[in-house]
């Protein structure tokens, strides 16, 4: 696949909870190698959109394609095996396992078959990759500590690093900066930039980022989609979005 070609295509996605339409007829494309931001006020349907795309919930209508193939009905496990990684809005590390094991387990299921893994070496040959990510995220010094014993910020870094261990083509990040101090927001931004520039198997991976921190989104993302009340208000570059008066009214204004 060439850079800039659509990797993910969402068409006419809708999801209702009873009388509430959380997501209404949402369509967009994420191109290969791009960082795609999703912003919108609380309750605008961002997380519902995410969960539908990730097979966590089933959309009422619409179609999701990954590299041209229909993946609408696939669950989280199948999607991950096809190269889709994600982080969650809240911290989701394996608290009683060491930081290094957290990273190893995040990719080991992509190596070999299940029976083979029963007899595979404990690191599945992923040790160097885990150590490189630990260094990059500056958490190498806590590699042997239990993830649950780290500070919130460090756990957040572990959480994000885990999503990249299997070198996915597409990573969906749900509020990577939630609850993180301003200094760390900057580091997470530059980490994501660096990971996006990295090429694995000859191409760059694409990210979709939900975030409330405007500066973060504006500097990180190539294109941004603004959602209001479950619908797409506009999609454009950070400059275009910043200049759009409707966005100001709907979101930035209040």
């Amino acid at each position, binding site marked *: 696949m060439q850079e800039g070609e659509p990797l993910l295509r969402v068409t006419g996605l809708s999801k209702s909870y009873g009388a509430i339409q959380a997501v209404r007829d949402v369509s967009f494309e994420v191109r290969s190698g791009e960082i795609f931001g999703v912003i919108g006020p609380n309750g605008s349907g961002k997380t519902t959109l995410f969960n539908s795309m990730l097979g966590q919930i089933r959309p009422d209508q619409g179609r999701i394609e990954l590299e041209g193939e229909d993946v609408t009905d696939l669950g*989280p*496990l199948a999607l*991950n095996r096809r190269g889709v990684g994600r982080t*969650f809005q809240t911290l989701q590390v394996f608290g009683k396992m060491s930081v290094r094991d957290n990273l190893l387990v995040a990719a080991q299921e992509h190596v070999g078959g299940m029976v083979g893994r029963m007899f595979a070496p404990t690191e599945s040959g992923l040790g160097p990759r885990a150590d490189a990510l630990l260094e990059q995220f500056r958490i190498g010094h806590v590699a042997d500590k239990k993830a649950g014993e780290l500070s919130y910020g460090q756990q957040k870094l572990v959480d994000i690093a885990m999503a990249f261990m*299997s070198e996915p083509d597409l990573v969906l990040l749900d509020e990577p900066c939630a609850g993180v101090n301003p200094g760390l927001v900057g580091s997470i931004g530059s980490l994501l930039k660096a990971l996006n520039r990295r090429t694995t198997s000859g191409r760059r991976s694409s990210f979709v980022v939900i975030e409330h921190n405007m500066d973060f989104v504006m500097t990180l993302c190539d294109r941004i989609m603004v959602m209001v009340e479950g619908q797409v208000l506009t999609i454009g570059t950070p400059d275009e979005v910043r200049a759009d008066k409707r966005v100001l009214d709907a979101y930035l204004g209040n």
Partner: protein
Amino acid sequence: MKALGPIAGALALAVLVTAPLFLKNYGIHLLTTWLVFIIATMGLNLTVGYAGQKSLGHAAFFGIGAYTVAICLKSGISFWIGLPLGAFFCFVVGLGIGFPALRVQTIYLAFATLGFNTALWLVMRNEEKFTGGNFGINNIARPSLGGISFDRNLSYYYFVLVAALVLAAAMWALLRSPWGKAFQALRDNPVRAESLGVDTRSYTLFSFAIGAVYAGIAGGLYASQVEFIDPSMFTVGQSIMMYLMVVVGGPGYFFGPVLGSAVGVLLPEWLRFAHSWYLFVFGTAVVVLMIWLPDGLLSMPERWRAFRRSRERP
């Protein structure tokens, strides 16, 4: 610190090999029972401690193994066929018992497995033709292998010791393989695990099936050890006792079952001085232990480290 591991291991092995030489028959019987329960709770520790699946039906698998060996021996089928056959039955039934775990968790799963245990207990009690009903099966023979008879209590002890060591080594290898990490990921956060490609469905089922195999082998060894089995040995109460051994020893610690089984099997014997008060003393000891060390005896070093860290800080 690292060098202490092998030294402690060699020392423990030396004690396990020599201790029965200084014991009378009853002492050897107790040690053998302890080893049998280590094997059984090693399996439960995988299901409960590593994979996080609350099972209160472990004694049922223990019973399947015991009855398979007993019925085989009574029908003239060799112990060496009966034991693996019991393990195989446990694997299959364990897979089946894993299915409720895909739908329900925590206390609801505990109740589902408890129901299974009760149902199996009723089968053992009511199917008199095969199981002897309430009277059980007696005169269960001890096996021999290549001319070596395990008829005497001491030789049977060594046989069970070898079996326990082999099974412990297999469990150690399993837990060190990527499977070990997958089980723990399933325990700590199944939703995240699935989003990372961990097939939580399969690992849940296998955590029950492999745990059940350990219980089945332990049950088979137990039947031949005590030479008499009846349904009262495989009740929900026994399952709860095994669960208690795992929790007391330290769920998710490799050596947890060793300590836990000592508490469950040996401690009541040491408490004999208390006569009819023994259950009261035992219960109180467990309650105090759970309040003081909710993660089990083997969490003590970790608690101590955390305590020292908290004092180092200004």
